[in-house]
């Protein structure tokens, strides 16, 4: 299934760094996020977009992960050539990530 089935997400920007939250709809799915939505997978998923590093922060109390991606916004929001200079649309791309789930779970 797609990550979109179990999590929601929001993108924020600061300079040339983008952050994307990944928040489980149901806290029971948080371990799946921790196990499968790794920094390496996120970096690979954003091939051609993220030029820097991806750092992951874990927030178990709200069943969420926060990904901080440097070198992502075309040299910085205020000077980028990109159509979406803020990278606001990146969260939707991340929710396209494939998640291996036991088939009993459906979207909340």
């Amino acid at each position, binding site marked *: 299934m797609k990550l*979109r089935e179990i999590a929601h997400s929001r993108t924020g920007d600061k*300079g*040339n760094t983008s952050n994307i939250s990944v928040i489980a709809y149901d806290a029971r799915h948080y371990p799946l996020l921790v196990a499968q939505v790794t920094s390496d997978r996120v970096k690979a998923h954003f091939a051609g*977009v993220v030029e820097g590093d991806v750092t992951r*922060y874990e927030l178990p109390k709200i069943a969420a992960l926060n990904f901080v991606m440097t070198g992502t916004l075309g040299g*910085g929001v*205020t000077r980028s*050539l990109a*159509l*979406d200079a803020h990278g606001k649309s990146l969260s939707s791309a991340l929710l396209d990530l494939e998640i291996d789930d036991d088939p009993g779970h459906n979207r909340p």
Partner: protein
Amino acid sequence: MRTIRIGSGAGYSGDRIEPAVELAEKGGIDYLVFECLGERTVALAQQARMKNPESGYDPLLEERMRAVLPLCASKGIKIVTNMGAANPEAAARKTAEIAKSLGLSSLRIAAVVGDDVLDACKAGDLSIMEFDSSIKQLGNRLLSANAYLGAEPMADALKAGADVVITGRASDPALFLAPMIHAFGWRMDDWNLLGQGTVAGHLLECAGQITGGYFADPGYKDIAGLARLGFPIGEVGEDGSLVVTKVAGSGGAVTAQTCKEQLLYEVHDPARYLQPDVVADFSDVTVEEIGPDRVRVSGGRGTQRTDTLKVSVGYVDSYIGEGQISYAGPGALTRGRLALEIVRERLKLTGVATSELRFDLIGVDALHGPEVSAHASEPYEVRVRVTGRTDSLREAVRIGNEVETLYTNGPAAGGGAWKSARDVVAVASVLLPRALAKPQIRFVGG
């Protein structure tokens, strides 16, 4: 326990105006905060001020103040805003003039000045954080340097009796922290209270982004009434407790999900959210729905503030030229790709000097690039977009021209060509020793 209600009346400079009126009218609020100052807005406003010394504040100041001042005055709601941009004193004078014209000349209006630290930055020749350069090396490209001030001067202005506090660059959460510090007498070294207050300010600062804006995803995250989205209210207790809510009957929703998304918005390390007044720690924050459109947010903490203030430096970075044209129907994608190849070759042939170029097909790969978009299906229509960075406006103009000439020289049936060329004012950051920023309060009128 004492509680105050703080309304968030704007999340950016161009934000909707009626939700703030709704908050003042029906929100039972004590404070109304308008966050209207984007990253580079101060630099652009500084340019305006150099042309006209009475300008340089938010262009919607008058419209917003006219809309809310009568209600706020009659209900005793205090206003805190960063609409002063590059000229808080002129903004305060303008607001006093508006108040007078509305028969509200007893309102006390204060400007917080001192965020302009250009001279201090020049004297110290501070290093740019984002790239290898310094204030001095930016030379005459340097436009402005404004420190992110903390909540204290705004709280002091409220204490001194201000009904309206207008600041320039200040940290966004500090606009909300100031009323808390003023109302509850929080000490400026009570790091946990300042940390939890920062959680409240951070959640509220983008207005509609916590009441269902920037959130809806039909079938997954449904939000009703986005055309009449209500803006948020923070109910803050003197112990820092926080409930986020909104005006009953307004559009949108306040849920655990909207609060979690906003909690992490523009946050890097959640344990170290750097603010002028505190290093806030969001890592143990909990979010709990306690009623319809009522969410309790607890557990924010803080540690001692740093010795420096972040300064936003505005400078002329470069020029950007751009052109667009559309293709539709069978073969739209291949004609769009051909168009891009033609422009790529033309820019080379005619020797347009660029330091960076970008070739997009809007509808195909413009947002996330060709690799992420590789498996997308073919669209009915595409829009060609070519953009490039240059050292002069003259060169930037040539980029759009090479797209426009596709009309008569490019693939079949291109339509809707559009072009632009502009200078780019960008922002970078330096860190300034805290003591070198000296905020002051200036009252006008009243």
